[in-house]
């Protein structure tokens, strides 16, 4: 008698299995960049411009100081191109003597020394003189345009004089700067090898972005530049492109010093000098029939890119594509531009333009509803995109449209509204409905051809080789779940290679809500292929899988028409607020959000992404304010740039709705950024519900709320 077959392994996908690196994180064993011990390493420091615009007239190293124990790097020491490799070659690695300064905190010099004390002393003995020029701060005065996007569908209603039964609502919205505020500041350690290669270990999201930047500035080959991601304490986009600068700076110092250099930012420098969310102004002119039929949307977007281009064109693109909101409208015109100002460059931050444009789109629904005397929820139900509808770019939504699902789920789950016991506190509720494209825009994924490797090892285990990084969102855990299920083995059989460019191929950056959906799918397919091969071949062997765009996706980059994203994820958020009329302070007490994620590969992690993203949006909407002074941020310490504490955070209730996408692994869609889109407009609507005032901007600070209430 043969023994009964072992019971089938419980599927890992869909279960909230323990985080792969969880034990290391709760014991303090996880090693972040500054935790790493590197023998003989010196400390590095960046010397930055104190003026927002001008030219460097002179750089003087005080001869009274002993410079023999300090390494100084200037633009003249850059062996390759003095360019931060990204989209446009406009940002220098270091501003040269005689060169242009375009923003405060612009890097000019680098220093390295054996101890921090010497470093600080050396920095105090440098004098830089500038020929200052008149800076441009106001969007209306900006003359340099980084990029423009125009999207058109049908014909927008311009002249309504002859039209009966038509209302035109016009509003202007303002969105503010926001700092990503990863709790681990930026940092990199560069280690020069005797063969001329340079290894950089850092806190980063995109090893291959850094790799390209190192090759360009230090004139290194693919093999000579090695980038390794250390355990990373948060990114949210703030470590998408900025780490290239830190890495190149560290590498230049290490190369000149002939020894490793640690370039770790302190919080003040990180706040003062690194990229922020693009602020901007968005204007809507919406025409509706008096019965609520949506006729046309005419939208103008202006985003402030700061001094250099960085990723601005892509941010603008996403902002424009989402600008009409989650609604079906026959006539849409979107005109978007991003301009340069003499402020530190703005860059990637979760949502990447969509939170900004969706803020405006969602509040327009509220304003139109108010004008018509209708419920904004009813209006959304009438207007929302459904299966088979066409978006502003002419994309027909052929599957996985969760708009009504999430609206119904959120409404059902929202707690009953109470009234406040305190006389001077008013309660209010607001709702928003948003969508967010998963994956790169248009032909982005096709151009990238992200690639992963997958190995079957001789000992019966397997190894995933990917450049996709774990930054807290659960990459490592879900990749192992996908691989385990595709192979039909236990999770303990799956391992991952380090995110080291000398070991793994380029699966693309860890951004754009693409990691689970696009790269995870590659992991799933590679694992399935390995399983098939194992039936006829013995380990060890390796397969590679590259992204192939489905034939069904068509996008025209020149006309901005077609399938902007492979698929969209959907969210409905209901925010409850209390407004204290004594102080104007807004407290978000409860947030309910229903999210159509396609499939929750790991429910706890999916909720975690949603809860965390929602709170970041709550902060953006209420207390995360950045005031500018002479082209620099006044809020440059953690005592003055404020994010929500546990006492400020609302109770957040998440409802996961599974509405599968056929091309996603197990039907999963990307949701990393979506949670950033819904809360802000819902909060503004809630403030109106509580007080009767409309604040068409974020952050809705107490100062603004109080003034608005007073002028009623």
């Amino acid at each position, binding site marked *: 008698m043969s023994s009964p077959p072992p019971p089938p392994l419980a599927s890992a996908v869909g279960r909230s299995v323990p*985080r792969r690196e969880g034990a290391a994180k709760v014991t303090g064993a996880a090693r972040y960049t500054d935790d790493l011990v590197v023998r003989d390493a010196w400390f590095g420091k960046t010397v930055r411009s104190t003026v927002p615009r001008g030219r460097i007239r002179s750089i003087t190293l005080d001869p009274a100081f002993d410079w023999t124990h300090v390494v100084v790097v200037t633009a003249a020491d850059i062996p390759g191109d003095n360019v931060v490799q990204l989209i446009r070659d406009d940002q220098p690695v270091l501003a040269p003597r005689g060169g242009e300064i375009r923003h405060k905190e612009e890097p000019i010099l680098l220093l390295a020394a054996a101890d921090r004390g010497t470093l600080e002393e050396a920095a105090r003995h440098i004098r830089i003189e500038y020929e200052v020029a008149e800076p441009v701060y106001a969007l209306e005065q900006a003359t340099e345009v980084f990029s423009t996007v125009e999207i058109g569908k049908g014909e927008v209603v311009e002249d309504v004089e002859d039209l009966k039964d038509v209302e035109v609502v016009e509003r202007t919205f303002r969105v503010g700067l926001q700092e990503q505020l990863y709790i681990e500041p930026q940092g990199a350690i560069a280690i020069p090898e005797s063969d001329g290669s340079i290894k950089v270990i850092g806190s980063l999201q995109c090893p291959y972005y850094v790799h390209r930047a190192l090759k360009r500035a230090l004139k290194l080959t693919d093999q000579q530049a090695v980038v390794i991601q250390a355990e990373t304490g948060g990114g949210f986009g703030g470590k998408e492109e900025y780490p290239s600068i830190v890495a190149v700076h560290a590498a230049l110092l290490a190369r000149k010093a002939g020894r490793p250099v640690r370039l770790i930012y302190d919080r003040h420098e990180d706040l003062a000098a690194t990229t922020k969310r693009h602020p901007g102004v968005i204007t809507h002119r919406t025409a509706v029939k008096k019965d609520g039929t949506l006729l046309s949307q005419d939208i103008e977007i202006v985003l402030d890119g700061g001094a250099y281009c960085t990723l601005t064109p892509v941010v603008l693109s996403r902002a424009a594509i989402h600008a009409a909101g989650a609604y079906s409208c026959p006539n849409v015109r979107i005109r978007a531009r991003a301009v340069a100002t003499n402020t530190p460059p703005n860059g990637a931050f979760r949502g990447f333009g969509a939170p900004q444009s969706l803020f405006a789109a969602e509040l327009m629904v509220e304003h139109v509803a108010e004008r018509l005397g209708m419920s904004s929820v009813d209006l959304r139900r009438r207007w929302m995109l459904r299966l088979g509808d066409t978006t502003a770019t002419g994309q027909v939504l052929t599957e996985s449209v969760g708009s009504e699902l999430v609206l119904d789920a959120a409404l059902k789950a929202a707690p009953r509204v109470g009234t406040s016991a305190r006389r001077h506190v008013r309660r209010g509720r607001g709702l928003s409905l948003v969508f967010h494209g998963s994956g790169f825009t248009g032909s982005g994924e096709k151009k990238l051809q992200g690639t992963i490797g997958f190995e079957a090892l001789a000992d019966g285990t397997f190894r995933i080789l990917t450049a996709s990084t774990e930054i807290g969102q659960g990459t490592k855990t879900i990749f192992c779940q996908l691989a385990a299920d595709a192979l039909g083995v236990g999770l303990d059989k799956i391992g991952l290679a380090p995110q080291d460019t000398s070991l793994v191929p380029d699966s693309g950056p860890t951004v754009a809500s693409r990691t689970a959906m696009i790269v995870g799918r590659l992991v799933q397919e590679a694992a399935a292929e390995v399983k098939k091969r194992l039936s006829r071949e013995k380990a060890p062997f390796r397969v590679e899988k590259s992204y192939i765009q489905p034939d069904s996706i068509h996008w025209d980059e020149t006309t901005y028409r077609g399938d902007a994203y492979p698929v969209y994820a959907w969210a409905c958020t209901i925010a409850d607020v209390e407004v204290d009329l004594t102080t104007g302070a807004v407290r978000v007490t409860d947030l309910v959000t229903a999210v159509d994620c396609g499939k929750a590969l790991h429910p706890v992690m999916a909720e975690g992404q949603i809860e965390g993203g929602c709170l970041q949006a709550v902060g953006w909407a209420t207390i995360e304010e950045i005031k500018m002074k002479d082209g620099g941020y006044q809020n440059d310490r953690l005592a003055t740039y404020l994010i929500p504490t546990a006492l400020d955070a609302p109770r957040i209730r998440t409802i996961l709705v599974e509405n599968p996408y056929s091309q996603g692994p197990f039907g999963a869609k990307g949701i990393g950024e979506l949670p950033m889109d819904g809360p802000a407009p819902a909060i503004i609507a809630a403030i109106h519900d509580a007080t009767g005032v409309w604040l068409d901007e974020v952050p809705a600070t107490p100062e603004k709320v109080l003034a608005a209430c007073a002028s009623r």
Partner: protein
Amino acid sequence: MRFTLNGTTISLDVLGTRRLLDVLREDLHLTGTKEGCGEGECGACSVLIDGQVVDSCLVAIGQVEGRDVVTVEGLALPDGRLSRLQQAFIEHGAAQCGICTPGMLLAAQVLIEQSRRLTADDVREGLAGNLCRCTGYTKIIDAVLSCTK
């Protein structure tokens, strides 16, 4: 100077004005305690001194003479197994990027050792000095509540 660290007596010869945070990380190679801001705002550097949670970036090592210090490295059980609190953090998804986790665990440890029954609001107040950017705090509070009496 001498003090107790995670149950063991430590003798050090260091400049008394150095931050406890730096002595832990650089001299004692205990890198579990993190620096998030250096100004007592984020709590990533939290440690316990005589059972109370403090920001180690604001404590001079000289002030620790004769005291009992606990860091995240001292939370696991003597046989190396994770404590109930550490397990709860993993089960509930209370750690994402993990950089706030050591400080958060120590602040939470003080809470769960209290004899009274805690509410969610008590936990929020007790953790208000530990900033987290990843989680929205929801699952951290769930994890801590699961460990209270």
